[in-house]
């Protein structure tokens, strides 16, 4: 019997799994993989929580959700109370419950995890949000009286949405400007439907609109209007434009037909719904043998999308070994179950194509792990003479994103670091340009939804202070 569990006879409840679509079925459809907890399963899982006095889990949450408090409400069957508790700190729980890397955050710190499996905090958060969306009374939280101050938010990704949600409740007028034709940032163009249904993202955005946030779509700040023009119309401007610059491998043959950046592959499939071509007008190459380069969430999403688009083989070609894969544990697990084939310790050298310009293969080199590098992970070193070729007709490059220079370069007064990201105070999000704040991937480099939201939270506090007391 573990020390933490005091009640002597209490039967130990195992961590509750969410029911999900079978791998053989789901690998060919775009429906969401897990079905989510039933109320019974949720209450059972909630019972596992020890209600720690000094909860470790909360320290791992960048927006400081009152984790044990909402779990207790679920246990008691007060699902509406649970979601209200979460909303106090997190405006996008249905999203976070699905995509946060809980194993490195709240769940990674949960005391139960020392001897057993941690409480499934993410699944419970997701349950509370879904229950409210499907059965809730959709009452809006109270709003502070109007202050007459106006804030422009550039970008509708998780960081921009957080800033908008916070400031509208504090009585300010908020307008979001989004370059694409749908709001949500990576949540809508990057993360696939089977992992985060778009209906959920739209419902979260719709919630903000009901609170009074204006969303102007198809507006590219820097082109449609500049940041300085926004500053003339608004009291404060928040830049949450994301990383949004695809990085290519810079190897020969990247122009062949069938070679995509992950951004393009996923945007075509998700935002433009190319998986439903020709019902939708945007096409995508439906490869039979697809190779994805990279090992993060973006790579897993691309590999699983390829299967759903009809691939017979979907390979992940990664320079390091399985232990170094940066993706969420759940994504790696799901990818393996669905039949994604991993080629570890392999590095692409060049793409091969036919005379009509279509991709036919890739040549790679085998690697072995050497000394640890700056990131603490063992550096892959090439094994001379170990070249090998893989026959493929589609390649998706998912080795990371950089800072998109479109807005930053055309905004005088913003300080950028040498990689092109905006320099902002880590506590407040203030940039070097007066009345301009920034946060999310455009400050940190490609990171996570919850870190982008955490940055949005800090900036919204700072913006509110400025609007109330001055710079």
């Amino acid at each position, binding site marked *: 019997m573990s020390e933490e569990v005091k009640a002597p006879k209490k039967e130990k409840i195992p961590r509750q799994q969410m029911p999900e679509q079978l791998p053989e079925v789901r690998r060919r459809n775009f429906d969401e993989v897990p079905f989510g907890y039933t109320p019974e399963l949720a209450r059972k899982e909630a019972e596992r929580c020890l209600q720690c006095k000094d909860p470790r889990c909360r320290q791992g949450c960048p927006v400081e959700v009152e984790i044990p408090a909402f779990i207790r409400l679920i246990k008691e069957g007060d699902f509406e109370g649970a979601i209200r508790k979460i909303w106090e700190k997190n405006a996008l729980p249905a999203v976070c419950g699905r995509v946060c890397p809980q194993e490195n955050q709240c769940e990674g710190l949960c005391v139960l995890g020392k001897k057993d499996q941690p409480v499934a905090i993410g699944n419970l958060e997701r349950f509370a949000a879904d229950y409210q969306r499907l059965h809730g009374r959709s009452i809006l939280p109270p709003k502070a009286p109007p202050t007459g101050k106006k804030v422009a938010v550039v970008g509708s990704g998780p960081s921009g949405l957080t800033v908008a949600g916070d400031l509208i409740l504090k009585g300010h007028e908020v307008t979001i400007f989004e*370059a*694409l*034709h749908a709001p949500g940032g990576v949540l809508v163009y990057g993360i696939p439907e089977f992992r985060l249904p778009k209906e959920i993202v739209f419902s979260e955005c719709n919630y903000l609109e009901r609170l009074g946030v204006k969303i102007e*779509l*198809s*507006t*590219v700040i820097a*082109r*449609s*209007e500049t940041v300085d023009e926004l500053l003339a119309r608004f009291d404060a401007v928040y830049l949450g434009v994301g990383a*949004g*610059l*695809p990085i*290519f491998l*810079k190897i020969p043959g*990247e*122009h*062949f*037909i069938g070679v*995509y*950046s992950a*951004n*393009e592959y996923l*945007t*075509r499939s998700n935002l*433009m*719904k190319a998986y439903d*071509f*020709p*019902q*939708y*007008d*945007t*096409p995508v*190459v439906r490869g039979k043998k697809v190779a994805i380069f990279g090992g993060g969430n973006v790579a897993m999403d691309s590999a699983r999308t390829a299967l759903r688009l009809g691939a017979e083989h979907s390979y992940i070609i990664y320079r390091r070994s399985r232990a170094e894969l940066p993706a969420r544990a759940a994504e790696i697990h799901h990818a393996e179950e669905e039949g994604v084939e991993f080629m570890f310790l392999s590095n692409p050298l060049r793409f091969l194509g036919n005379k*009509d*310009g279509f991709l036919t293969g890739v040549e790679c080199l085998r690697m072995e792990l050497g000394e640890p590098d700056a990131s603490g992970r063992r550096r892959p070193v090439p094994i001379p003479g170990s070249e090998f070729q893989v026959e493929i007709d589609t390649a998706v490059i998912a080795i990371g994103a950089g800072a*998109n*220079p*479109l807005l930053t370069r055309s905004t005088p007064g913003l300080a950028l670091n040498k990689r092109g990201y905006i320099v902002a105070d880590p506590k407040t999000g203030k940039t070097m340009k007066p009345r301009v704040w920034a946060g999310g991937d455009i400050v940190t480099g490609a990171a996570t939804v919850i870190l982008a939201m955490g940055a949005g939270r800090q900036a919204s506090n700072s913006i509110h202070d400025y609007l109330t007391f001055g710079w």
Partner: protein
Amino acid sequence: MFEIVERSEMAQGTIISNWLRAPKIAKKALPGQFVILRANEKGERIPLTVADTDPERGLINIIYMVVGKSTALFKTLQVGQGYMDVIGPLGQPTHLEKVGKVVCVGGGTGIAVMHPIARGLRQVGNHVITIIGARSKDLLILEDKMRAVSDELLICTDDGTYGHKGFVTDMLKKVLTENKDVGLAVCIGPVPMMKFCCLMTKEFNVKTLVSLNPIMVDGTGMCGCCRVRVGGEMKFACVDGPEFDGHAVDFDELTLRLRSYLAQEKLSYDQFKAAHGHNCACHT
């Protein structure tokens, strides 16, 4: 919705001109820039050059050739109807500077792209010689508009039904031979035309601008679909272009990449034609 307020057909109905109500874009757009349009919820994002603007009335002009499903769908849109999204202005505007004598070469719908650029180049004080061409007389567009912004206008048709018989490249050679003082050439049209114009201007050592039309998705530098090779480097046409130094562009690679979806495009267009019949103007 971005409403169509004026609509006309040119080149025997193969090229369509729309004036749209888009006041913010009308105020901002400069020569060389483009917009991305989407007809409806299921539509593709299609880039088209801003061919003209009327900032006072808040209108922009787009001119496109019907080449596939999306442009065929655009063609069905009548005055009073419109596009769901129009995003822009996008891309770098043309760098307009006085160099003295300029030759502007436009082919097909490239003439529409050329018009604001030629006008801009003339406004800053250049002597503008314009060469426009089409396969035959019926397919030539914007003759009057181009005449109004040029000091000299030369017309070519492949079949000799109008103006000089022959390709614009032949005429370009003649102009460059006769005018040793040409400081800049701007060539816009089908890829092969631009490629051969650039080979020609290279012989005469005349700096040349071209405007590229790769396939695009977002138009903000996010996806890399529009990548082109210029001077051996990867550039994104939507943000670094669409204009580039014609002598550095890898036209063969561009030609290849433009064929990425030929099979899918055909499928989509055939289905559309089957559903809409020939030349039907009904709206779904």
